């Protein structure tokens, strides 16, 4: 790794940059325009984010997340490395600071033209495989090289769901010799035996977190967080209804805000505020839409059945806008509470979670269920064509959003989805959805340049007469 990269901690750099970005709209319009001139690499992502009314708050939230990480130890808190598909709510309940690798990777790829290339490569220098998923490697490389806030413990919940993911966390813990905990996920969802396993595993997790943080779980704090989560679920469910409208009454980045916010601050008031802003924007636009005033040039609508493409400047979202493609949601933006629209519409209550806060046992059962329904954890734990798994979820959501086509985008490191995506695509095609498989790496443009990715995507849209 270049010495230059080691001059400042990468998380500190990110924090300062997002912090500055979140203040850009605080001045006058003229000041803002002038500021953009001085940030040639950052202005595109900033402009894209600010297209949503909640954009500034989203950047503030991101800066706060990074502030928490960078200053955790100064504030006497422990840090826990974890994954996007692990709900951080329990960490907040125990006053532990989550350090979510995939989020840090994306925060960096959005901003820096070079992406996380050198950190990805550093993982290989440390002995990790180059074929592993770039979503973890991007920021893990920096932490392996000790240019980030030291990690006190590692928790992952992907064993049984995504081995490549789990393996990255196990590798880091072994490399740095720090405490490690894994939640296991059986390959199906709806069975008493599975529920019991989830709860027992979750109780063991809490014992682990208590041991390594030196804190005891405060029931009232957990209750408060779960109630906040309930509120957030209600807001997401309202948003879901707006996202089904055609033309789309919300910016194409809405779905990104929903899931990124949840991954950062599940159960925390700052995320509730973000959702409230999105909901307000949706309500206003829907009202205008009903009055025939709201206009949008949406030509076609896509459903991303896995993840988005996160390289520099939010180019995926820019492209969707340029092509007038509506984008309502993907598999990451669904958390499957019992009043979530697809759950209600399809009567899938048995596969959903509900939040109960009366007793500690209620709360633990609820939070274990929430965690076991996190994106990816729910949908790809078992065979893709089993009940409540990837195919069923994809078809239900694509239909609900009135999507015209489906896109798979992931990383070459995603052994799990690449093991079945061709089969999935055959089934979604049979169900009437033109389906495009992107061969790009969502976090690393070196695998396939964005230009090539975009060309192929546009070719698909043209050939299938979607634009």
């Amino acid at each position, binding site marked *: 790794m270049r010495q230059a990269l080691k001059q400042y901690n990468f998380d500190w750099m990110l924090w300062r940059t997002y912090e500055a970005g979140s203040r850009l709209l605080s001045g006058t319009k003229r000041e803002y325009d002038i500021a953009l001139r001085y940030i040639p690499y950052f202005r595109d992502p900033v402009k894209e984010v600010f297209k949503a009314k909640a954009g500034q708050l989203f950047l503030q939230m991101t800066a706060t997340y990074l502030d928490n990480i960078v200053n955790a130890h100064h504030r006497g808190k422990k840090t826990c490395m974890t994954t996007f598909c692990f709900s951080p709510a329990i960490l907040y309940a125990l006053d532990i600071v989550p350090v979510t690798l995939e989020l840090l990777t994306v925060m960096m790829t959005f901003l820096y033209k070079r992406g996380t290339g050198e950190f990805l490569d550093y993982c290989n220098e440390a002995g*990790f495989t180059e074929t592993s998923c770039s979503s973890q490697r991007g920021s893990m490389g920096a932490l392996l090289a000790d240019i980030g806030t030291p990690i006190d413990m590692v928790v992952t919940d992907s064993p049984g769901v995504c081995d490549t993911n789990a393996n990255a966390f196990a*590798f880091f813990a072994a490399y740095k010799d720090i405490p490690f905990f894994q939640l296991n996920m059986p390959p199906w969802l709806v069975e008493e035996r599975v529920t019991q*396993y989830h709860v027992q595993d979750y109780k063991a997790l809490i014992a682990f977190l208590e041991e390594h943080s030196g804190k005891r779980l405060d029931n009232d704090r957990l209750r408060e967080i779960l109630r906040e989560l309930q509120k957030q679920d209600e807001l997401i469910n309202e948003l879901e209804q707006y996202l089904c409208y055609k033309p789309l009454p919300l910016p194409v980045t809405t779905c990104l805000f929903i899931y990124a916010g949840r991954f950062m601050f599940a159960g925390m008031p700052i995320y509730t505020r973000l959702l409230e802003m999105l909901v307000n924007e949706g309500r206003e636009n829907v009202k205008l839409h009903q009055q025939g005033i709201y206009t949008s040039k949406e030509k076609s609508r896509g459903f991303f059945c896995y993840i988005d493409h996160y390289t520099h400047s939010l180019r995926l979202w820019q492209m969707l806008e340029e092509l007038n493609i509506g984008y309502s949601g993907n598999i990451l933006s669904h958390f499957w509470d019992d009043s979530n629209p697809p759950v209600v519409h399809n009567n899938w209550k048995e596969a959903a979670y509900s939040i109960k806060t009366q007793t500690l046992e209620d709360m633990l059962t609820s939070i274990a269920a929430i965690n076991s329904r996190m994106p990816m954890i729910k949908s790809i734990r078992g065979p893709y064509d089993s009940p409540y798994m990837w195919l069923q979820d994809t078809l239900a959501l694509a239909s609900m959003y009135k999507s015209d086509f489906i896109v798979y985008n992931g990383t070459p*490191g995603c*052994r799990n989805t690449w*093991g079945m995506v061709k089969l999935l695509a055959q089934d979604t095609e049979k169900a009437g959805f033109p389906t495009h498989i992107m061969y790009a790496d969502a976090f690393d443009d070196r695998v396939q340049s964005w230009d090539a990715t975009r060309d192929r995507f546009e070719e698909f849209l043209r050939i299938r007469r979607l634009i």
Partner: protein
Amino acid sequence: MFEEFYTIAQSINNEYIVKAKEHGALCIGYTCSYFPEEILHALGIIPYRVKGLNVSSLSVADAAFGPFICSHPKCLLQHFADGDYSFLDGIIVTPGCDSMRRIDECIRKTAVNFNLPVVPPFFFHYTVPHKITEYSVKWLVDELQRFIDSVTKHFSLLFSYEKLKESIAFYNRMRKRLEELNALRMHYPARIAGADAFAVFVAGLSMPRDRFYSMLESLLSKYNGADFENRRRLMLIGSANDDIDFIKTIESQTAVVVADTLCYGPRLDIDYVDEEDEPLHALALRYLNHSHCPRMYGGYKQRLEKVVGAIHKAQVEGVVLQNIRFCDLHGAENGLLERDLEKMGIPCLRLEREYGPMADYERMRMRIDAFIERLDVRRIVNTRS
């Protein structure tokens, strides 16, 4: 002396299975060493560890699996698609790793999409936790019971705990014999080639076990041993391997593989099942605790300890850490092992390879030769000092 073992190990079907099936025996394949064969044996079913050998095309496998998948499960799928596993009455798929787990859908969907009769009549997705706790052991006990219920119902068989106990005792006896065989290659100097020993291990996973046991006993009683005194003593670690040619490539005329942690081999310890314990609980404990696989996340330190123990016991001079491309579990663990073993002064060679026909034979040969040279130099330096 080893010819018959080689014949069985290096082919998919064999005369013993053909004959047994002619007499009405059932044969069920499985994909992962975490499945306890004892249960099938107790039901009179031949357990068969599916292999990916001798595939000449991946036409169907490439169409079903994506491009970023380990070639081992791809070869297995191709065999199913080619009808090579039509002698199997069932298949047990285990989420050993992501690639292997997805063979479930790939087999089933290949049957539909290509209209091929590739799905064995009995199909079971067997779930093994990734850690050892009281509740994960309980999960596995329940899973074994679920399997017994399912297989007995499907084939209208009667299951008895007495028979299972007998099978457990039989397998323990067989493990004792395998331990004796393993001791021959760990002996200094090695008394058996690593490839020969491996042929026996792999054959033991591919034929009726009672017959294998008698063949093994006969081998051990008659075998006089060979001399491998001047060869470098290697340990082989990493991805699943059922390919004896790969071992031969490593050994050539200059080395001998005296220990391994490979999935089709005996791994490091030939653990026994507790015959005093309740049978399913004993099996669950043994299989969760035994297997030397990085799928058991967070267990690196224990595995390292076992590897170091084996290195000392077998007087290993160098370690070959190999992984099939896209096998991240072994690939990453090999990175840790390389760091830690080299720190201890144990030379390591990391190899990434493809499974199957020896496409990169010369490349591997060259790297292994260079590694052997390194070991030679080390031996000379050690002798002088």
